[in-house]
């Protein structure tokens, strides 16, 4: 099971890297989602996947019975899913706003905050280049 999860983790990571390097914001967002899911898989895989019984301590017992699943990674993953949901929603709105105002989704073409070239060594030219876009 761990091997399978590890392979899946690697696959998701590779796909995420590929998408994050794309010059299109929707792809980048999907890449972020995949990366988040890879992280969740890593947490689950790291926290013992053997047990399947619910992690409840029986009446009178002092510890979990053998074969109980580990509740902590699940709690961590739940938190992480909620957070990545909120952040992804924000980035999607951001991409939508960018599309409406700039009519492009190519991050390379977004040059309002970061000019394409080095600033000029002449301050007047630099100021003009800044004001142009």
């Amino acid at each position, binding site marked *: 099971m761990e091997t399978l999860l590890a392979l899946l983790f690697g696959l998701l990571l590779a796909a995420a890297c590929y998408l994050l390097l794309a010059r299109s914001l929707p792809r980048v967002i999907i890449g972020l989602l995949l990366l*988040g899911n890879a992280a969740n898989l890593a947490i689950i895989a790291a926290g013992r996947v053997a047990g399947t019984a619910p992690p409840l301590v029986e009446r009178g017992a002092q510890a979990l019975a053998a074969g109980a699943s580990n509740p902590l990674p699940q709690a961590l993953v739940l938190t992480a899913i909620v957070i990545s949901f909120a952040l992804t929603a924000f*980035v999607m709105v*951001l991409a939508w706003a960018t599309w409406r105002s700039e009519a492009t989704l190519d991050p390379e073409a977004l040059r309002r905050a970061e000019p394409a070239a080095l600033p000029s060594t002449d*301050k007047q030219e630099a100021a003009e280049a800044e004001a142009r876009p």
Partner: protein
Amino acid sequence: MIAARADWLLALPVLIPLLACALSAALRGRPLVQRAVTATAAAAMLVSGAALVAEVLGRGVIASQMGDWPAPFGITMVADLFAAAMVAITALIYAATAAYAPADAGMRAQEALWHPLLAALVLGVAGAFLAGDLFNLYVWFEVMLIASFGLLVLGGGREQLDAAVKYAVLNLMATTVFLIAVGLVYGLTGTLNLADMARRMPQVPNQGAAAAVAFLLLAAFGAKAAVFPLFFWLPASYHTAIAPVAAIFAGLLTKVGVYAMIRLVTLVFPAGQDWMAPLLWAVAAGTMVVGVLGAAAHWDIRRILSFHIISQIGYMIVGLAVATPFAIAGAVLYIIHHIMVKANLFLVAGAIRRAGGSFSLAALGGLWRRDPWLGILFAIAALSLAGLPPLSGFWAKFMVVKSGFDAGWYALAAVALGTGILTLYSMLKIWIEAFWKEPPEGAAVVALAGRERWLLLGPVAALALVTLGIGLWAEPFAAYALAAGEQLAGREAYIAAVLGARP
């Protein structure tokens, strides 16, 4: 069990901004009430921060288990001298930007959103400083991140959208790397509590995996701290934010990353993996040089200042790389000095923009003749950043560089000194262009006057006074930093405070 004083002191720096966030979000549309809420919260936070520092000075490291679940199972909040000082300085910056913001011209339409987002940001920052648990640290980072996304796009301009896309994507990647590392650390050590992890990390049989995890964590925190190869989001975004937002970002956000790096390296990996010292060496030198050269190339005040954030982070990493108690104390003093001075410089930049009509050095000029006080306040912050005596930057830089020479890291100390000279160069560039040169034809001339002048320059003057105070009366601050350095280097106090007397 009734919560003891330590529990309250540790919870209040988180509770106050949380309440302020909820209240000011509910009071949208009533800017005056919102301002009152933020002002009250900032004042309360200053008091609780000071009380926390006093308590930690008196009793050493204090820890609190939320809900009384014993460590390492529950959520732990810890404050040592370093963390307490960071909380107090966060409160100071909160108060300064809160006082400055209503007078800032870029703010007017956005003020309803500014108050809750500012409180949320401070909540995340204070929580991150007090977290005693790696996963909580991750959650506080995310709180901070979502609030900073909101603050960055506050102006609603097209420039800000571009900046926010780059800021958001790169920071999200960094936090996801952090999350992956959290999962792997849990798999290796079976714990997420930092103190417990410090005890168990040396016993991990697979030290290669431990090194990989340490690298992942350092990379994630390094991206937050904007260190050399991972800083690209910072110059792409900070200069687009409105002045009070840029000030609080510049002061606090990157320093949370540095704080996390120092905490991780001193507490969990104190013996240091073999690769760690050379790596930190290269990162520190690269960060200083690239940052300061980037600043030298620019002609826009905010861009210059943004690049200087990066170069100054390098000095803190020098302290961490040298890693003697004295060096760590230097890093601690450097962070405290830097948060104040950098936030102050961005606030001054906002005032310069108001008085001169532009951030671009080409369009500015003649400010010294029009408003000498603005010039003096800028000069105090700028010369402190460059590290000239008798200002706070001198002592911070002195400690860091001396620790480098003491430990025989001559090349690194030389790089640090050279970076100081180049920092002075860019500060003088701003000074000559904006204050001394004749104003260019057709430059906007807006005299800062009356109430607005007081509101803009009041917080700046207060922060400048603190800088001067640290510079002229350095002894108690240096002693505090040295004690904090000792405490970070000898980590037993921290571990004992969190885990109690358990073996």
